[in-house]
């Protein structure tokens, strides 16, 4: 298992989430001797060149054929292998949607599908590679687990946890390089168990993915204005940690969800679906990307264009809070 030394945390951040995946992969055969990794012509992008040299029998590059990759991975799972499969998030979710639905969802075959470059992380490549619907695709499929780590340290945690996790899962990896650090030290990560990062009675931000960092910064900005803002890292979007949410409904006066994903069908949708079952819960502000295709741009530019930087998040919350309070 990988340790959270200062040097490691810095290295992971500098590698970004895809590089961190590749580095973490080096240790997977020790965690699960049945480990195989498939990639659709993204060995290099997935940071898997070292893995390919160290474990040539464990890496299968299937070429630019994502549907085939998901089916192959499912066939290998059925023969008892522990299989990760990597491609860009848009192709993992949208292009492979039917093989994922039938093989991983319906049959429950435990492929760990890794969607790289999620959100805006390869935003300069334009809307074909800007993945803002993948959470919606994946969480709509029965049996799927959906994980979106807050930083590269959590990526390490999630990959290691998935190595022995029996069911099918989608691991959403994105963010900028260097990747902002949420976790400077070790902590307990459990699939399906959200983590409270910050206390605060007035407002609770429930965030997922790289914008957990922006949410923490936004909470600090709001604190300076006298608002007490809690932050929860909902790293697993499915199954949703409904226990922690019940606590939020009971204590906060405003629930805010923040995600680098469409406002349709993502974390905001998941929380709203859950919250709507209970009367008297606090109102919800869904912060995410509006329903459009942003033009090409670098990571920071797109966060700003879509209102996902810390000051923008803080302003949006403050504006809603004035209507609630």
């Amino acid at each position: 298992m990988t340790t959270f030394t200062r040097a490691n945390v810095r290295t992971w951040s500098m590698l970004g989430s895809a590089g961190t995946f590749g580095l973490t992969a080096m240790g997977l055969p020790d965690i699960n001797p049945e480990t195989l990794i498939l990639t659709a012509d993204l060995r290099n992008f997935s940071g898997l060149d070292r893995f390919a040299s160290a474990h040539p029998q464990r890496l299968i590059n299937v070429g630019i054929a994502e549907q085939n990759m998901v089916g192959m991975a499912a066939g290998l799972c059925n023969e008892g292998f522990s299989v990760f499969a990597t491609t860009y998030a848009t192709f993992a979710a949208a292009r492979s949607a039917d093989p994922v639905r039938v093989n991983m969802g319906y049959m429950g075959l435990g492929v760990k599908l890794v969607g790289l470059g999620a959100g805006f992380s390869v935003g300069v490549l334009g809307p074909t590679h800007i993945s803002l619907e993948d959470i919606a695709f994946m969480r709509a499929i029965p049996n799927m687990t959906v994980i979106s780590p807050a930083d590269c340290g959590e990526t390490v945690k999630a990959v290691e946890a998935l190595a022995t996790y029996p069911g099918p899962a989608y691991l959403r990896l994105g963010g900028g390089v260097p990747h902002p650090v949420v976790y400077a030290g070790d902590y307990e990560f459990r699939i399906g168990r959200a983590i409270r990062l910050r206390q605060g009675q007035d407002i609770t931000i429930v965030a997922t993915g790289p914008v957990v960092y922006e949410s923490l910064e936004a909470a600090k900005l709001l604190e300076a204005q006298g608002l007490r803002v809690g932050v929860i890292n909902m790293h697993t979007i499915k199954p949703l940690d409904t226990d922690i949410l019940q606590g939020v409904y009971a204590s906060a006066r405003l629930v805010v969800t923040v995600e680098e994903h469409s406002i349709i069908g993502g974390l905001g949708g998941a929380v709203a679906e859950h919250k709507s079952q209970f009367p008297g819960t606090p109102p919800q502000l869904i912060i995410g990307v509006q329903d459009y295709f942003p033009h090409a741009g670098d990571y920071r530019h797109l966060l700003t264009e879509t209102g996902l930087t810390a000051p923008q998040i803080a302003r949006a919350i403050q504006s809603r809070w004035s209507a609630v309070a």
Partner: protein
Amino acid sequence: MKPSLCLENLQTCELVAQDMRQDILRMGLQTGLNGAHFGGGLSLVEIMAVLYKSVMRVNPAAPRWPERDRFILSKGHGAMAYYAALKQAGFVTDEELMTFKSNQTFLYGHPSMNPDKGIEFSSGSLGLGLALGVGTAIGLRKRGNNQSRVFVLMGDGECGEGSVWESAASAAHFGLTNLVAIIDKNGLQYDGPTRDVLNMDGMAEKWESFGWQARTVDGHNLAELLDAFEGPGNQPTVIVANTVKGKGVSFMENNPAWHHNRLTQAQFDELTAARGVNS
């Protein structure tokens, strides 16, 4: 002469095929107004009879036996022939067979994964089975299992799916000699002749150009089928089986209306009488 081609084996397969056809009609009849996929099931009968009675190594008493052969019905709408074959092989009882498509059955209109009943994978969405076969074949090789083969049965209409060709390229690239694809080339799909809907002429040549070794046979000729299934070559093998959709039932043969349709009791009685078999 190859042992599988002996008269006794041919006769066994012939009788099995007859029983399977009758079972398909019985299953189809009891679906009533829901109807069933008759045409694409009947075209498969000889292929399935040969696979389950002579070619494949399967054991209903040990359905997860690691050295079994793996079968994948990629054209899931051929389910009736699959289930009829599973009955012949001892995986499914006649009573279970007659629950086909009922609300509580495990025998769905398209196969639903059920390893203990001999159903390796779910299917129904066309073009996905060969990728499962490629993964399975690689997995067997990684386990050092040189006994088992993987059989994937597809339709010619199904080959319109691009994912089939991703997997075709992949199987050749990885040199999967333990993988056998069968194309049930009945020439008809939902909306009419395959040639009119999406022309796939030159089927064997297409597969050969992808690096497969292709054999073309009469898909209703037991001896030709048995011969084609003999031992692995040095490439993945595709057997292009020329078949007749609705084979064995005069008014269903080559009739697109019987891709999916309802069979009446009167039609069934007439067919049963004409075939001289017990219903």
